């Protein structure tokens, strides 16, 4: 299907890759269908199917935050119908503020990569902040080896 977007113009997407957020995303309760656009690895846009303006810049958190871990509650697993751990894909929303990029580690998005059902959860974990400064990946690479 073809989708109009304000940032990328008209985009052709595979209907089978539409991710369903049955509860919407907090702040956008009516937008329940999204798709991912690869941007600059590991960054992807999570774009609303039904609104050309609404898109989130997201990243897989682990390259930036190797220690990032949380336990998923049973209710989330049940809701997303996650049967095996590798079904759960995790991304976090990035925020630009004051010329720096931050990751919302407090509220990760979990997507069941088999059923393409997603939800944004709010972690009850004081280690993680809504605005965690995003470290540069290049420094990580140089520093670790």
């Amino acid at each position, binding site marked *: 299907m073809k989708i109009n977007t304000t*940032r990328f113009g008209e985009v052709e997407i595979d209907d089978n890759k539409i991710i369903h957020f049955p*509860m919407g*995303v*907090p*702040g*956008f309760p009516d937008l329940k269908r999204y798709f991912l656009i690869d941007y*600059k690895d590991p*960054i992807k846009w999570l774009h609303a199917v039904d609104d050309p*303006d*609404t*898109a*989130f*810049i997201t990243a897989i958190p682990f390259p930036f935050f190797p220690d990032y871990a949380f336990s998923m509650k*049973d*209710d989330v697993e*049940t*809701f997303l119908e996650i049967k095996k751990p590798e079904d759960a894909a995790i991304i976090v*929303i*990035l*925020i*630009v*503020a004051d*010329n*720096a*990029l931050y990751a*919302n580690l*407090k*509220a990760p998005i979990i997507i069941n990569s088999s059923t393409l059902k997603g939800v*944004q959860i*709010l972690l009850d974990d004081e280690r993680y902040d*809504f*605005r965690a400064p995003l470290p540069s990946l290049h420094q990580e690479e140089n520093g670790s080896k």
Partner: protein
Amino acid sequence: MLVLTRKANQTVNIGDDIRIKIVEIGNGYVKLGIEAPRETPIYREELYEKLKQLNQEAAKLDMGKLKDFLGLKE
């Protein structure tokens, strides 16, 4: 808004499947125990409001700023 007075260890039922128990009353706080169906999201209001606000800001992200940050501007 319905306002009820409860003591520690007392419970409020909301419908058939939500129970809120006053677990502890301390100095300036109460600790609640909540039993609800799995699909019912339960959040601290101020955190949920903050998340909504941040998502709304994030969704307005300007491409130019992002490209600057990622060094994509040639």
